[in-house]
């Protein structure tokens, strides 16, 4: 599913690893900066000085824009800051990729999106209030949850979580972890990768493999 071969950048020297389809993996980095660099390298945003990156058995840095976009449609990434678009309302943020790629109307996925958010412990009146607002003032854990729901609606084969449990209260963290584990088990062959410099924050996740950089 993910394969890095001899990756060399400022931070990594000859880094190689492979993550099998359908598995749950943790990657423990040494710092936030290294975390971001690794994520960027995997997602084709930052070409390494040396080495090759494969996603879904395709070499990321040799793909055309269109081919890479097709890979991204199958990949959900939940970023540490939520990765929400600041000038779109919360609701528009959640439905943007589904609307853009599948052509489904935003109302078609409303029920699914609301269910996911309720599973995450959000009450309906808060949701109603939040949906028409811009995401800027929201607390970071809500931004991450919204980022998760946005990715989940695309039903991806690969989910990458970028330090999403860091700084959360134990209850919040537990609920969010359960949510990601449930999501992982919903589709056969789905791969989940948790990348973080804070090993403690992903302690509660049952993994198939752990990689410490």
């Amino acid at each position, binding site marked *: 599913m993910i394969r890095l071969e001899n990756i060399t950048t400022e931070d990594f020297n000859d880094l190689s690893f492979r993550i099998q389809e359908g598995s749950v993996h943790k990657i423990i980095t040494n710092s936030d900066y290294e975390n971001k660099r690794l994520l960027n390298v995997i997602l084709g945003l930052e070409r390494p000085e040396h080495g090759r990156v494969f996603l879904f058995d395709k070499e990321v840095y040799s793909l055309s824009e269109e081919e*890479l976009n097709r890979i*991204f449609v199958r990949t959900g990434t939940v970023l540490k800051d939520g990765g929400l*678009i600041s*000038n779109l309302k919360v609701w528009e943020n959640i439905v943007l990729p589904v609307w853009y790629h599948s052509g489904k109307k935003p109302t078609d996925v409303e029920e699914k999106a609301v269910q996911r958010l309720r599973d995450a412990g959000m009450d309906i009146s808060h949701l109603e209030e939040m949906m028409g607002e811009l995401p800027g003032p929201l607390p970071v854990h809500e931004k991450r949850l919204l980022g998760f729901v946005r990715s989940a609606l695309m039903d991806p084969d690969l989910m990458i979580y970028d330090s999403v449990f860091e700084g959360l209260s134990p209850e919040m963290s537990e609920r969010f972890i359960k949510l990601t584990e449930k999501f992982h088990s919903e589709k056969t062959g789905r791969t989940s990768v948790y990348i973080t410099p804070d090993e403690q924050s992903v302690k509660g996740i049952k993994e198939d493999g752990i990689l410490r950089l």
Partner: protein
Amino acid sequence: MISALKIGRSIIKAFGYLTGYYNLLCYFIKNISLLGRAPIRSVLYKQLYFTGIEALSKVAAIGILIGIVIITQVINIAGANAVLIGKILIWTVVRELGPLLAAIIIIARSGTAISSELGSMKVNNEADSLRIMGIDPVDYLLVPRIAGITISVFILTFYFQITAVAGGLAFTSVFKGLPFLQNIKGIFSALGLFEVVVSLAKSLVFGLLISTVSCYQGFSVEASITEIPQAATRAVMQSLFLVFIFDGIITLISFA
């Protein structure tokens, strides 16, 4: 020696910007069909609202004031001559001031807003967020903005001209006692299709220039928040500069 180096660097920089604007404009023209996609169209509608509809009242106010000023000056110099008033209004408002002032209003209102907005999206990694959702940020953020601003400049120019001419004539009818219908006849006798076509062509060119420059400058911000005001300043100054240059070129070609 140092100043020669500085001039050389400035020329290379300017050439780089012009190449960037040209490439972005070509990309826009090549991918204009993207506006058929609902999510991109929704960005276009928002841009039309912010740049076009929200500016209507300001454009109308400035248009009426300009119309009043021009007609008052004409009456002071040449007396209440309906044909002359018509001709001067057409020469100034339709041929020159309409497209130029509408463009300047858009540069001041939306050029800065767009370059700052795009710049802050770049600093906050929102372009990368779009990228990893499989959405090309240029397609989603720039194409509808260029279309929205261009259409807005086109419509606002037309609106400015109507309010300037009608407002000016209405003012002179009420306060100077000139017959409104006689002045309208003067306008129509001086107005030809050619003037209208050139004026609207100017507004289209200005719209494309302003939107391309503003989007390019905003999107060229990399990682630092201090780059945002610099990009906004460059967007305004370069848009103004290019609008005046192209205004001169089109006027020379059309009316010389």
